[in-house]
């Protein structure tokens, strides 16, 4: 039985990673978006480093959220188009495990690169030095939450022609706790407070998302992908 759990999870994880590697251009999109939008902030707001430092943490979080949202659409859409999603649905595996595998792959392809690129943006937006480690930690945990929650939205909108915009509308309210605790982690560190409590809250959200989101996405896929 455990073998069956694992095979569904790791097979789909590996498959999605291989696919992403073969289409590297697509996978780089969210990261490029993340980096490019950050150049708009000094242009639109102010190039003064003191004022940039105030908004840097929140801005990086907002951009990471938008970049994730941008890539969420593709999580099930390609598989729906080429029919492999249907094969997954009729396979004897437990549906949530392969879906968790796909969501994990999504995080490895978008969330992790965003996290790793964030110190660079922090530097460009003159984030104070105390904020870098908390930002890395909160983004690593938080973007995983974003991938999982967004997966439910992607499952709900997979068969719609203009699903992408609707997906953002559905998922945005659900993302709000993540961004609150994510930017609070950095904010606490900058104020010289203990930043572990908000990070722990983010971790609790991740635990709940890992348990619940694949189930909700599986239920949604069974309904929506046939229509």
């Amino acid at each position, binding site marked *: 039985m455990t073998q069956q759990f694992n095979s569904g999870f790791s097979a789909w994880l590996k498959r999605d990673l291989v696919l992403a590697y073969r289409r590297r251009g697509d996978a780089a999109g969210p990261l490029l978006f993340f980096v490019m939008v950050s150049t708009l902030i000094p242009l639109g707001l102010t190039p003064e480093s003191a004022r940039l430092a105030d908004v840097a943490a929140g801005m990086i979080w907002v951009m990471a959220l938008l970049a994730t949202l941008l890539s969420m659409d593709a999580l099930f859409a390609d598989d729906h188009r080429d029919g492999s999603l249907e094969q997954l649905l009729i396979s004897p595996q437990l549906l949530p495990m392969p879906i968790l595998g796909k969501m994990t792959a999504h995080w490895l392809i978008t969330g992790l690169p965003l996290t790793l690129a964030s110190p660079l943006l922090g530097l460009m937006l003159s984030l104070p030095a105390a904020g870098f480690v908390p930002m890395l930690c909160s983004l690593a945990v938080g973007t995983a939450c974003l991938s999982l929650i967004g997966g*439910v939205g992607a499952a*709900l*909108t997979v*068969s*719609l022609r*203009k*699903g992408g915009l*609707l997906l953002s*509308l*559905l998922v*945005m*309210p*659900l993302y*709000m*706790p993540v961004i*609150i*605790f994510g930017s*609070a982690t950095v*904010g606490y560190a900058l104020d010289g407070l203990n930043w572990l409590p908000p990070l722990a*809250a983010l971790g609790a*959200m991740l635990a709940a998302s890992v348990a*619940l989101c694949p189930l*909700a996405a599986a*239920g*949604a896929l069974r*309904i*929506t992908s*046939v*229509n």
Partner: protein
Amino acid sequence: MNWQWFHRLGSPRWFYQTTERWLPWLYLAALTILSVGLTWGLAFAPEDAKQGNSFRIIYIHVPASFLALAGYYIMASAGAIGLIWKMKLSYMVMKAAAPIGAALTFVALVTGAIWGKPTWGAYWVWDARITSMLILLFLYLGVIALQYAYQSVDAASKAGAILALVGTVNIPIIYKSVDWWYTLHQPATIKLTSAPSMHPDMFQPLLVMILGFYIFYALALIVGTRSEILRRERKTGWVRELAAAEVRS
């Protein structure tokens, strides 16, 4: 235990015919209680010592906010009943509940903004409660948008129900986190959350208004569900007979 009443609830036709008899009474009750509450609250309740007459908007604002929140749970429960017991009727209730709830949330936000101008000097403040009401409005709009996005009625209902349920799990988390976020930001002057100890003369009309809004909500939900029943069951025999009778008279 006799479950017949429960199974009967699954029949849109039974619901349509039964509520036909309730409707006049509900209209009467809603009209009477709302007009009594409004007259009492707007004309006879004493003026507030600090806010003067502007506090009277509470008689719309508070009942609307109550129902906006309760309405989400009603909508989500109806969706859950539909998913679990596969009842067509409860999906229709869910679809009817979404726009009513969104409208009430909007009313709560607008009356809050109008009330905010004279009392705090600003239409909009990023306060915990206001922000969470705004998020609630977004959740409602998401459910409505998802239902309209699907061609197939069945997929629209089930997808809407799943989204409503995901929202239900999230609402406490959102509320807690927004509350927490607000205390983090340390507000300067405004305090909304301190419970106002209201004088009974002001409080009694408020209770009447809340009761009136509940009845009005039930009425709106039933009327909305009835029109949804007619739309979805338009090909069945009894709806055609109904339409034919309407044409004849």
